[in-house]
């Protein structure tokens, strides 16, 4: 039951933001967690590394004999071309990968997509190509240069090395010092990374046979609970697990002082749900809202 309550909507968490679209509709957004974003980056780096390895394996398979020629007197023009292709490929892997995917219709690299993230403009307007370019250019200072720096043992290079280390650390740790988990690239580009889930439309609730004649609930019985409890009940009904149904039915009948036969739980809960929702929604139409049972 507590899991169901956690799944409830309407309780703004630390990462929830409201964004107003140009049409004036307020849309709830969830800022991607730092852990997820780091995970997405690791995934992307893994993909890039795998891509590079596959690329070299294909090269190796295609031009297996080429490397034997390296020892000969004249530099082989084919081998030379190969080196140029390799250097350009590595360059593209470093910059092109992120640009290509973030400029696509999902505005997310494969790693982000797997973790349900995407890039969006912070002001609710359009995400432009320039924004994506800007955030990915700065990525170079945040990811690749610190990576090379550490791999190359640059931190042992005396005062200059230490300064560079501190400077790069500022970039790397930037997301931990603001509430939207923006990295420096996001700040410059005016973007942020948000969660992007899709949802399936579920069945309408009041299509079950109308039982308002069998179960009649009075004003007092319906005014015990509020919207929060209604939505928990909705969740329980949608999940349709016998034990949960029994527990909730027991809790409600205890509260309103009813006796319920075994096996009638679902019928009773459906009827109670319909009645309670009708009651609360008619209150809503008159501008009266009841958040939960305490209010």
């Amino acid at each position, binding site marked *: 039951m507590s899991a169901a309550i956690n799944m409830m*909507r309407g309780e703004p968490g630390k990462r929830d933001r409201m964004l107003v679209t140009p049409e004036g509709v307020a849309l*709830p957004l969830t800022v991607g967690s730092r852990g997820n974003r780091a995970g997405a980056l690791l995934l992307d780096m893994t993909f890039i590394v795998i891509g590079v390895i596959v690329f070299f394996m294909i090269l190796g398979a295609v031009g297996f004999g080429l490397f034997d020629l390296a020892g000969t007197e004249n530099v082989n023009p084919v081998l030379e071309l190969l080196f140029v292709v390799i250097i350009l490929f590595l360059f593209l892997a470093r910059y092109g990968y992120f640009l290509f995917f973030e400029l696509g219709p999902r505005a997310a690299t494969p790693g982000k997509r797997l973790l349900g993230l995407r890039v969006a403009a912070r002001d609710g307007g359009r995400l432009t190509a320039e924004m994506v370019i800007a955030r990915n250019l700065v990525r170079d200072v945040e990811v690749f240069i610190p990576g090379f720096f550490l791999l190359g043992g640059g931190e042992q290079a005396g005062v200059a090395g230490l300064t560079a280390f501190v400077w790069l650390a500022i970039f790397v740790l930037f997301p931990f010092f603001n509430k939207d988990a923006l990295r420096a690239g996001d700040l410059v580009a005016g973007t942020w990374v948000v969660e992007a889930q899709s949802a399936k439309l579920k069945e309408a609730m009041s299509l079950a046979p109308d039982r308002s004649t069998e179960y009649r609930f009075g004003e007092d019985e319906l005014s015990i609970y509020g919207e929060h409890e209604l939505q928990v009940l909705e969740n329980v009904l949608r999940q349709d697990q016998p034990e949960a149904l029994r527990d909730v039915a027991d809790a409600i009948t205890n509260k309103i002082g009813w006796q319920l036969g075994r096996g009638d739980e679902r019928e009773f809960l459906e009827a109670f749900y319909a009645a309670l929702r009708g009651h609360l929604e008619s209150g809503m139409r008159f501008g009266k809202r009841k958040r939960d049972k305490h209010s």
Partner: protein
Amino acid sequence: MALPFFKSAEIEPPADVEAATLRSDRFRLEREVDWQRLDQIVTALEKGRPKRISDEDLLELPVLYRKTASSLSVARETSLDAATLSYLEALVRRAWFQIYGPRIGLFGWLRRFFMGGWSTSVREIWLDICISFAVMVAGTLVGWLLVARDKEWFYSLVPGEMAGGRVPGADRAVLEESLAQHDNAEGLSVFAAYLFSNNTGVTIMAFALGFAFGIPTLLLLLYNTALLGAMLWVFADAGLGLDFVGWLSVHGTTELGAIMLGGAAGLHVGRTMAFPGERSILAAMRDAGVRAAQVMAGCTIMLIVAGLLEGYVRQLVGDTNSRLAIGGGMLLFWIIYFAFVRRPPEHEA
């Protein structure tokens, strides 16, 4: 034409509206088909298959989006069905992402970029380019004057492995040899590609350092051009000044131009950070960052060109006058490109 039976097969007909006892459920059942249609269109867009969408659907997309957005607003005030609300929120959010998502892919962007996006951004940061240029000229002068007064300065400015024999008082022949052409282009393409990778790093550094109000960028520019000034003095001292300028100008007009633009882009971001004007600092930085990013992307291209010139042309053309002509020609080309290529009219509303 999309196949009509595909469409009807996917969208489930709503249950009988009258069967619903609650008013808010009837509201939902009446509009459900529109939502599902929007859902299908958005899914096709997300998968990058806009051709799957029928013309009719595409024309109605804005209407469907607004209908669904207004359904969400109404549902928030009248319905307590949590599942429907979260479905609508997710759907409107996805549709919003699609409608306000990036309009052009990488290749479309490249086309617009070359046809004027780049030169427009360069013109927009003219003030920073002037500052950057002034600093580079000052740096060269400082380097020259320092070494002219005291040769010891040369050794503190230029790292040993870079000088490679090109030191004050060096033999004229050694200096001439370093400027000479090579007989063939063997191995040069690898060298060019390597130079390009290396120089791009320096330029991106100049940009990224702009973050600290642009001061590190200025220092970087100053130091690198002081080095140039010192080197220039060494050659001028040996009577090879013009030859050195020719040798350098082949790729230098492009490469120094790229470094100047990279520095200017960094300065632009740093300057906006220090003086955001009347806007909020975040909004101002976003505008500056987007502009600077265009310039930076262009710098990469200039550096590719510079790498090719440095790797091939400079080693193959030995005559100082031809070298000067090539360098001057490149400079003229860039100036004309940046000054006169206008952005084509926007097709997007």
